[in-house]
């Protein structure tokens, strides 16, 4: 009989419960920020002609919505495995938020354009935060054993 096999069920249940809603709220907020950064907070360049940054903005709105919705979904499930799976998905969503402006759709070339000077750094910050939240949450769920809440 060791301490690893004897669980304090009440305490663990309480902790998992808190984790579920805190993480969901964090993903919700992060998804919202991914949408707001290129549109409202640090908007991309305004132009009649649709440039690279416009398409990046559109793509980020989509990814942001996915992050937000998956955040809501993760609060609805008590199953630890499902929530761990959602964390994996969110991790890759975070990577997509980063890849869109840096590689996939890109932004304007000149470094003093609004999208390069403001939007890009803000997206870098939020994407790293999403990666960290998803990674830490996955690690936490994997480490806390088989108990669902």
């Amino acid at each position: 009989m060791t301490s690893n096999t004897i669980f304090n069920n009440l305490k663990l249940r309480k902790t998992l419960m808190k984790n579920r809603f805190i993480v969901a709220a964090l993903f919700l907020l992060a998804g919202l920020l991914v949408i707001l950064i290129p549109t409202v907070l640090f908007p991309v360049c305004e132009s009649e002609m649709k440039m690279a940054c416009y398409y990046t903005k559109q793509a980020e709105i989509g990814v942001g919505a996915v992050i937000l919705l998956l955040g809501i979904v993760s609060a609805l499930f008590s199953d630890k495995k499902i929530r761990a799976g959602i964390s994996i998905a969110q991790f890759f969503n975070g990577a997509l938020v980063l890849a869109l402006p840096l590689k996939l759709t890109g932004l304007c070339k000149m470094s003093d354009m609004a999208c390069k000077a403001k939007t890009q750094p803000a997206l870098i910050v939020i994407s790293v935060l999403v990666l960290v939240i998803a990674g830490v949450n996955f690690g936490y769920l994997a480490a806390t054993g088989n108990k669902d809440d």
Partner: protein
Amino acid sequence: MIKTKIRSILSGIRSRIFYSTCLVITTAVLSFMLFSGSIIKSSLDKGMDNMDRRLGSDIMLVPKGSREEAENLLLEGQRGTFYFDGSVDDKVKDIEGISEVTSQCFLKSLSADCCSSEVELVFYDPDTDFVVGPWIETNYKSDLKKDNVIVGSDIVTENGTIKLFGKDYEVVSQMAKTGTALDSSVYFSDDSMASVIADAEEKNSFLTEEQKDGDILSSVFINLKDGYNEDDVIRECHAKAGDIFDVVYPKQLNESLSDNLLRITDIVGAVVLIGGILLFGILVLINSVIIESRKQEVALLRVLGNSKSKMALMLISETGAVSLFGSLVGCLLGALIVIPFGRYIGMSLSMPYLGPSFIGASVQVIVIMAIVFLVALVSSILFVFHVTGIEPYLALKKEAE
């Protein structure tokens, strides 16, 4: 043994999770402030150094009425076009007191890669130049041929070419980063000017009559010989070239920038200092609560056979571990925000700004972590000695009461 010590440290931290979290947050905020402040300051300093070297002439002659525009072009990188007669440099070059003269002409162009972005074209004389040359990164010694260009560090090229006025120009070299708007300029030999203007006309780009004329200059850079007075030389220039120019003093510009920089760094320094003192006070408070609340625990552990020095080491290790973790979080958060936003910070401050290298930033992180670690230890040391020095029974008795 190490595994046991780590377990022991983690166990101690977990036993006071709320206060440990407060300690992490405090050290993280302190580290964030120190790291961000130091990165911003060093980036501004580097930008200033570059500026100092970039504004490498004693005086600069610009067309009359365009002094402000010229200063803005140099300092804030606002695109500008202003012209005077193309023979001004020839007229002044033989004046006594002048050691070297070079001229430049500016043109604006829309870059085909990004329609709403403008690129400043600079036509210069490679034979007399002493302003552009020091900035060329690669060892480029050949004459700058027609259709060859040197680009600023921020210009993005495709397959070694850049498209201007619908035509491809070969990029033969790239300038080192200056942290100013000069990084987004394209440099041609003055021999190319006529053909570039012709290309622009062909593509129906808007050109003024002056620009179409071709025999124009935007600025004349002059270095003086030692011992000669600026005002005397300028008077002579007026006599030779007429009252067609204003004078910009690059070194004065630099001084005003330096003053700005000093003001900014004073403010940043004051904020960091005041914030640092407040946070040190908070650290002392948190440590006093954490360590004093462990009096009975320490007494019990001493009673169970742990020496004073071992207990002191345990408390210091826990404080150190928590503060190192908090410090790392703070520095990484600082790096995440300050480094990507570097360009924006420079633009907002209207100052040249040259961000740190990866190694430079990593060294800063280590230094800040070491400083915060020491600060956390200093804030806890008195309480550690107090708590480990109490007679164990007296500490336990208080708990029983």
